[in-house]
């Protein structure tokens, strides 16, 4: 078996990824440890009776920690849906299989998960310590410099180089083992925090039903918007054209000179009708999406935005038409919002594809304080994204900056 440079780079990258996950896992393991201590304390108090009152709080704490781990694991791989809300009565809660599995996870993650995370954190430190030993062992001499977690003591030059080799071996083993450790640490959570198969399907159905309803809602809202813009825009313009032509005919019979003003206005109205009709058609499905690619369409939006907008779009493959149209709509609405409300000088749009999801990030350096619940354009964005089973996240502290992230399943 030979290792080319590519394989080594790939292994290193995998190890680095795994390290990141293990470190993140260590974070939740610490929380799990704290929750476990709390739970055990509550259990001890139960013996004297007071604990029963504290039990719901302890279970809520466990649920909060478990949800954090679910979110962490969802970011990494397949989405893990939260189970039904906790039953109100402690006895019912303890009988709930999901709660029992959470408690099992808590014990394993607070111990094994913690151990794996802590080990992962010490490996690079120990390896660095040992590898660099030849550089500094003399400084601590004549005390023997201890390496490899107390197993070996270097007292002379050959000893120092042996220590260095041990360090290299540790590093290699670490690189090779870390992905497996990360998988093991995550596996417990994936096994015990995912709803069991039956519940999983039932919840998936519930979620799909909700998103389907949202899709139909979004569809109705979209139709309403189109109806409104056709009615209040184009139709009114055409009525005005009709009225003005009628007036011009009357004027023609009276005094032809009078008819000029009516005809001028009629033509203005007709031109406005055409412009508005073009706008409505464009908003339904931008023709540029059909003719060119999504990045091309977005660069058109970025160029038209009054705020200076940097676009970084990487999308080699096409997605389903409705997904691309939604992405286009999201960027168009977000940039309109930025131009109208944010007071920003700069905006940036990033589009890329991660596995089977289309990811969008839209940032601006404006005043912040945006909300997706106050009936702004952001509400429309959220609804349309959720209708496509996508994820919507908005961070907009008062004072800025505002970041909107959206990811959509590509559908192809």
């Amino acid at each position, binding site marked *: 078996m030979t290792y080319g440079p590519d394989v080594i780079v790939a292994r290193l990258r995998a190890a680095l990824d795994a390290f990141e996950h293990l470190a993140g896992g260590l974070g939740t393991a610490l929380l799990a440890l704290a929750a476990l201590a709390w739970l055990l304390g509550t259990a001890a108090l139960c013996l004297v009776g007071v604990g029963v009152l504290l039990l719901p709080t302890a279970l809520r704490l466990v649920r909060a920690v478990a949800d954090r781990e679910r979110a962490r694991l969802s970011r990494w791989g397949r989405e893990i849906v939260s189970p039904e809300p906790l039953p109100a009565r402690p006895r019912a809660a303890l009988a709930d299989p999901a709660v029992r599995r959470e408690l099992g996870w808590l014990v394993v993650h607070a111990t094994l998960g913690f151990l794996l995370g802590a080990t992962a954190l010490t490996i690079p430190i120990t390896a660095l310590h040992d590898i660099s030993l030849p550089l500094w062992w003399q400084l601590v001499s004549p005390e023997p410099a201890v390496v490899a977690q107390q197993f070996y003591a270097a007292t002379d030059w050959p000893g120092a180089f042996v220590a260095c080799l041990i360090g290299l071996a540790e590093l290699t083993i670490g690189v090779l083992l870390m992905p497996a450790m990360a998988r093991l640490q995550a596996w417990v959570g994936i096994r015990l925090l995912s709803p069991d198969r039956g519940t999983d399907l039932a919840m998936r159905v519930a979620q799909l039903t909700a998103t389907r309803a949202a899709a139909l809602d979004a569809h109705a809202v979209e139709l309403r918007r189109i109806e409104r813009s056709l009615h*209040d825009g184009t139709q009114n313009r055409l*009525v005005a054209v009709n*009225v*003005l032509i*009628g*007036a011009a005919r009357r004027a023609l019979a009276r005094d032809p000179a009078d008819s000029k003003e009516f005809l001028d206005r009629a033509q*203005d109205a007709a031109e406005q009708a055409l412009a508005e009709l073009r706008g409505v058609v464009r908003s339904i499905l931008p023709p540029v999406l059909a003719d060119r690619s999504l990045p091309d369409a977005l660069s058109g939006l970025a160029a038209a935005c009054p705020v200076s907008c940097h676009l970084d779009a990487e999308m080699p493959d096409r997605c389903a038409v409705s997904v691309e149209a939604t992405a286009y709509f999201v960027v168009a609405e977000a940039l309109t919002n930025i131009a109208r409300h944010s007071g920003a000088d700069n905006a940036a749009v990033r589009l890329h594809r991660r596995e089977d999801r289309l990811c969008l990030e839209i940032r601006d350096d404006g005043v912040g304080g945006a909300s997706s619940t106050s009936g702004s354009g952001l509400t429309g964005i959220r609804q349309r994204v959720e209708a496509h089973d996508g994820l919507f996240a908005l961070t907009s502290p008062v004072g800025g900056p505002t970041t909107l992230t959206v990811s959509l399943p590509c559908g192809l």
Partner: protein
Amino acid sequence: MRIVIAEDDLLLREGLALLLKAEGLDVVSTVANAADFLAAVDEHVPDAAIVDVRMPPTHTDEGIVAAVEARRRQPGLAVLVLSAYVEQAFATDLFTTGSARLGYLLKERVGRVEEFLDALRRVAAGGTAIDPEVVAQMMVRTRPDQRLERLSARERDVLALMAEGLGNGAIAERLVVTDGAVHKHIRSIFAKLDLAPADRADRRVTAVLRYLKDVDRKG
């Protein structure tokens, strides 16, 4: 004739005002929403008002509600409501308090200026103007009614024009017949529908509308 116009679309509002002024009518105020309309009616006490149905803030039936309210405040006010499309419910809401000095027309009718002005004058003079489209819907929606089926084709034409609010002279002109012939048709219609004869145009319209609505409701 002193007129107030309530229409939220700027272009159409200006167009209407221009048209009416060119015809020598006195447009005393033009407004863009229901609240301003009621204020303008209170302030100017006009003879007639032209009101759009859909206005801000909800763009649903603000114009109808405002028209009804304006007539409550000022019973003699003639109101001509303009609508982008026919909605039976709007017409029903509008005509619950009678049909004198009331009109309900599609916006596109304004383009036929002679007929529009005729309708406006008719409403201002105490009559009624109902869009042919509305009448047609009423006649079609009306479930099969034996008495209605007893009418001849020509009598049905006369009935429709009566429902629009036209007087004998105008009906005769439209159908290219003599006044006498129209008179005969109307007597025959009232007899066949078992309605008490009524001479004044607005009473006639009310009777006809009530008849069509009743037939519709009874099914």
